[in-house]
């Protein structure tokens, strides 16, 4: 599919002779480019096709299909797994925007299943129960691109080294509390600023400290940014939260429980979309913050035990 053609498809004044090179699927450029198209947008967690339609109408750039939103995973406990492919397919049929879905860390067969189903992006996510306590998926082995969470620069670069085509700061999913998202975003962007100040010979020790591939460390030091798009996630519940994360350097926003656990999901979803686009225009953020009703209740971090913290999952 997509082989360049010699000749022309219809009458026209110009010829379109093309090289007969075979199309390449699943290259880094094709995977990372997909994430570039999501920039400045909001990706919303949905558990049903109906919710997906609400998200799309509100202006979501993509939806994340999952079985339960993180707040419910916290409340109900048990092992959290990939969604039923029937649910994922129903969501894919219901909307025209890209559909992402989550797999457990290291569960490469769940990822194979989602690739076979045809999702547009796989999230290897700490929100689900990890399947491997030492290894993540080898994401180079897939045609479908992956997004992975990170709490700091070393973790982000390890995931990119494994083939992740997009990174999101983890935050603490299902809490409605933005404090961990801020911590992780600052850790990643601060780590990048630190690297860019190092002399070239100092980058090797930095790579060792970060536990990250030396070539990626050198690339980030040279360019001053990750080689992939950096979104934020985990605890974003209000338009102001979204604008805060954008001003801290996020390329876009994942919102999980914050929308469908609030009083007015459609209104809140649209408000977060607008605040993400106009993140540096306080008058717009003020306008869209009015009259949204109750945000999700939220959890204070001090009340979460270590076992309840999802961000610690991932190696």
């Amino acid at each position: 599919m997509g082989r360049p053609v010699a000749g022309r498809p219809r009458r026209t004044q110009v010829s379109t002779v093309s090289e007969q090179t075979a199309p390449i699927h699943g290259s880094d450029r094709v995977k990372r480019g997909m994430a570039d198209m999501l920039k400045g947008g909001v990706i919303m967690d949905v558990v049903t096709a109906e919710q997906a339609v609400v998200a799309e109408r509100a202006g979501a750039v993509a939806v994340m299909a999952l079985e339960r939103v993180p707040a419910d995973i916290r409340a109900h406990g048990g092992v959290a797994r990939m969604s039923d492919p029937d649910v994922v397919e129903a969501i894919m049929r219901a909307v025209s925007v890209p559909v992402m879905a989550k797999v457990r860390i290291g569960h490469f067969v769940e990822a194979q299943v989602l690739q076979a189903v045809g999702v547009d992006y796989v999230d290897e996510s700490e929100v689900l129960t990890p399947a491997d306590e030492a290894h993540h998926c080898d994401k180079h082995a897939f045609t479908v691109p992956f997004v992975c969470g990170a709490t700091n620069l070393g973790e982000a670069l390890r995931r990119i080294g494994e083939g992740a085509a997009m990174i999101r700061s983890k935050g603490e999913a299902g809490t409605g509390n933005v404090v961990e998202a801020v911590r992780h975003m600052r850790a990643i962007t601060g780590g990048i600023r630190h690297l860019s100040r190092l002399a070239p010979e100092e980058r090797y020790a930095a790579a060792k400290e970060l536990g990250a591939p030396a070539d990626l460390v050198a690339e980030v030091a040279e360019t001053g940014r990750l080689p992939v798009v950096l979104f934020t996630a985990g605890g974003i519940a209000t338009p102001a939260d979204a604008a805060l994360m954008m001003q801290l350097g996020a390329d876009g926003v994942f919102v999980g429980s914050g929308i469908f656990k609030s009083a007015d999901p459609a209104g809140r979803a649209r408000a977060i979309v607008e605040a993400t686009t106009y993140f540096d225009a306080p008058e717009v953020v003020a306008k869209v913050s009015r009259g949204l009703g109750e945000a999700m209740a939220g959890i204070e971090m001090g009340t979460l035990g270590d076992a309840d913290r999802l961000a610690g999952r991932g190696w």
Partner: protein
Amino acid sequence: MVDAPAAGAGAPAVGVLALQGDVAENLAMLRHAGARATPVRRPSDLDGLDGILVPGGESTTIGKLAAMYGLLEPLRERLAAGLAAFGTCAGAILLARGAVLHDGRPSDQPLLGGLDMVARRNAFGRQIASFEADVDVAGVDGGPMRAVFIRAPWFEELGADVRVLAAVETPLGARVVVARRGRVLASAFHPELTHDDRLHRLFVGIASTPT
């Protein structure tokens, strides 16, 4: 191809619709191609522009935000009055007269229009069918462009005055991926992802030529 002038007092002013998508890459490419490039997020940002670039992104999101923030009508009026325009991928969908989904069902979304053609969204398939390949573009010298197609559209039902600049072979036959009518240019692929600025230079040349 018209050579782009060096950026300066005489350089054309080109806006990039900056509601969502790969805005930064297109601003950088336009500046490299010799334009004075600025982001457009409000109607007043359109004042004095010689051209508008509508970037890749999610066409439904960009269209909704353009409608909410009062950009649809001013853009439609300026396009009708001859504003130069370049749309890539989602931007090309927005510049089309009509849009249909992958399976041909109508896509109910706000469009800017400007090009007499119908864009078939995600025409090559979902992301796992996204691809890169060399594509020759008529009027672009220097060999084929490395074209990156991301959930890309193709263009159908072209009006008589819409020129085909490039097409690719598909199982259904050849399909149009670059088209131009007068001052409006549309590409289904993303030249900003390969840092090949030849199409951007073509567009800057169009924008710097008086209507």
